[in-house]
């Protein structure tokens, strides 16, 4: 379980990523920018799982890539144990990479089809000889296969000989090889069959307990992260709109967008379904190259007022709940943040 009294292991401050839109081939001119991630802050504590949820295109993968230094941040800082890693390069960056690893969304494209499983899982040791096992590298690879629940004898096989779930296990084994502290999981199960999703999530939970890992777990709907997350952040169009504990987000959401997402989550209990109100969002998600002024959600929000177009709501504990001592007192970026019990329970 997360220990939020300790120092955060990862702290993201005002992270921004704009992809320039250019015209011209030889002489490029910038004609605008896709504001994929626009001023996002959050923290990750040791041993905790932070879920990040949002619709397609809201910038989740971009956040993951920024944390992995696969993309350079336009602005903002990423502190790993107090050190800003967003501007590192060369050897210093390589050293940090050992501690932060990633599991990719699509198990069909995240493994090199021309390499054997042994070479794929063993590659981290070739890149970081200082982290390689002293003795037999093969033995360590077999051990990793065993840890993720695969037959160690598969070491000489190629990725296309495995199912999606097995491939994702291979990807996880590669991520574990260097004994990282943080694993960024970018929709690790959304490409898998529902029956296999649970197996892979269970495996990830088991590994978290075993190795004390911290997860940043990205998903596009709230039901998948519910099971695994200690805290959840909800993103919309490059912004974090609400973030809080499990109980805060699932039982006391105060942001209209979270409420809409939650109202769409299927409930197993038919009685609970009875009294629940389903909020259907109308309209399309605006383009991140040209986001609405003020609150980005205002074009689809049923509570929107003039103020929403003029003033950007900040991510903070809403005034009205400032003194509450339940989970309802959590950060929500809405001028009119308020609970809406009809969406959670009857």
């Amino acid at each position: 379980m997360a220990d939020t009294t300790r120092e955060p292991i990862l702290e993201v401050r005002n992270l921004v990523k704009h992809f320039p839109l250019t015209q011209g081939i030889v002489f490029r001119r910038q004609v605008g920018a896709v504001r994929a991630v626009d001023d996002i802050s959050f923290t990750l504590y040791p041993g905790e799982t932070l879920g990040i949820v949002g619709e397609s295109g809201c910038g989740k993968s971009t956040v993951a890539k920024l944390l992995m230094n696969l993309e350079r941040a336009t602005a903002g800082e990423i502190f790993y144990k107090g050190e800003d890693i967003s501007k590192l390069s060369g050897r210093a960056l390589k050293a940090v990479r050992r501690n932060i690893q990633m599991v990719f969304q699509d198990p069909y494209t995240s493994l090199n089809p021309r390499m054997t499983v042994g070479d794929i899982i063993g590659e981290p040791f070739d890149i970081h000889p200082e982290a390689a096992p002293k003795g037999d590298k093969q033995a360590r690879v077999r051990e990793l296969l065993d840890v993720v629940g695969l037959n160690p004898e598969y070491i000489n096989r190629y990725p296309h000989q495995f199912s999606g779930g097995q491939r994702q296990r291979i990807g996880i084994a590669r991520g574990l090889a260097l004994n990282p502290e943080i694993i960024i999981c970018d929709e690790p199960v959304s490409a898998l069959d529902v029956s296999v999703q649970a197996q892979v999530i269970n495996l990830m939970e088991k590994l978290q307990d075993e190795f004390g890992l911290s997860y940043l777990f990205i998903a596009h709907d709230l039901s998948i992260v519910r099971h695994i997350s200690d805290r959840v952040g909800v993103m919309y169009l490059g912004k974090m709109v609400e973030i809080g504990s499990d109980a805060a987000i699932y039982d006391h959401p105060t942001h209209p967008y979270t409420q809409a997402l939650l109202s769409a989550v299927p409930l197993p209990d038919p009685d609970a379904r009875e009294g629940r109100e389903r909020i259907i969002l109308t309209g399309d998600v605006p383009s991140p190259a040209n986001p609405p002024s003020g609150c980005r959600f205002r074009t689809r929000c049923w509570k929107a007022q003039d103020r929403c177009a003029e003033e950007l709501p900040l991510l903070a504990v809403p005034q009205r709940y400032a003194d509450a001592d339940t989970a309802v007192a959590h950060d929500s970026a809405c001028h009119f943040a308020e609970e809406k019990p009809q969406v959670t329970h009857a």
Partner: protein
Amino acid sequence: MPDQNLTGTRSTAPVAEVAQAEAGPPPGKPRSLWSDAWSDLRRKPSFLIAAAMILVLIVIAAFPGLFTSASPRDADLSGAFLRSPELTKFFSPEWFGYDSQGRSVYARVIYGTRASIVIGVSVTVIVLFVGSLVGMIAGYFGGWVDAVVSRIVDTFMGIPFLLGAMVILVSFDVRGKLVITLALAVLGWTTIARVMRGSVISVKQADYVQAARSLGAGTWRILLRHVLPNAMAPVIVVAMVALGGYISAEATLSYLGIGLADPAMSWGSDINTGKDQIRVALHVLIFPSIMLSGTILAFLMMGDAVRDALDPKLR
């Protein structure tokens, strides 16, 4: 590249079976995409025929003396000028008849093979190396490097291949195999560069390249271990087809008299000699033409078969 199992047999366990049981069946032989392609190819008649033809051509090019005792340069002193072929006398100097200078057409066809194969293969090797390197750099690094390379490639692509080769060759007094090879390579590398660039651009976005980067892999490791092996297939197919084209280009240039010329031997220049006696002695023209077309066809067939075998959409 892990191709130790190129000759291995296809594992009997189908993928679907592996998928059901997470515990999995007993481990089979390792298989790569190349070995899958190979087991496809081995059953393809067009590939087998093309491969056999190419093999024979290579042996002829390397050891022409094994196939004929006659000299391709010396006239038969018994006065054999333009004598007709004797088609039942297999492998004898008379087999394909004699040309206007009394030389055995069969011997000339055999000895002419080397020029075609050597030039075709050398141009392909150079073009593969230069084109792949340039295409890979442009595709992987993008930005201004790509912009500059792409403009150069476009410029070269605008030059008609044969016309360009003629212009280059005319400026040389002596035109040996080396000069012709270089002329064709200078004009040919852009095709490979363009294919490689496109292939690299699609491969570099793959998650496994991102995964390698996130592990801290250096540029060279990423290019050689991840990008190149996965970007190679379309380039190899194009190169095989192009090889046929280079052989045809050499023959055309030699036919036009700006390629290889006496005393060097080439099917193209022999076809040129033959065209003057086309009414009296068709055989002087026909046999080198058949050899030339057969050779080009063999490489085209090979390229086609390999393309089908490597095409992931078909598997």
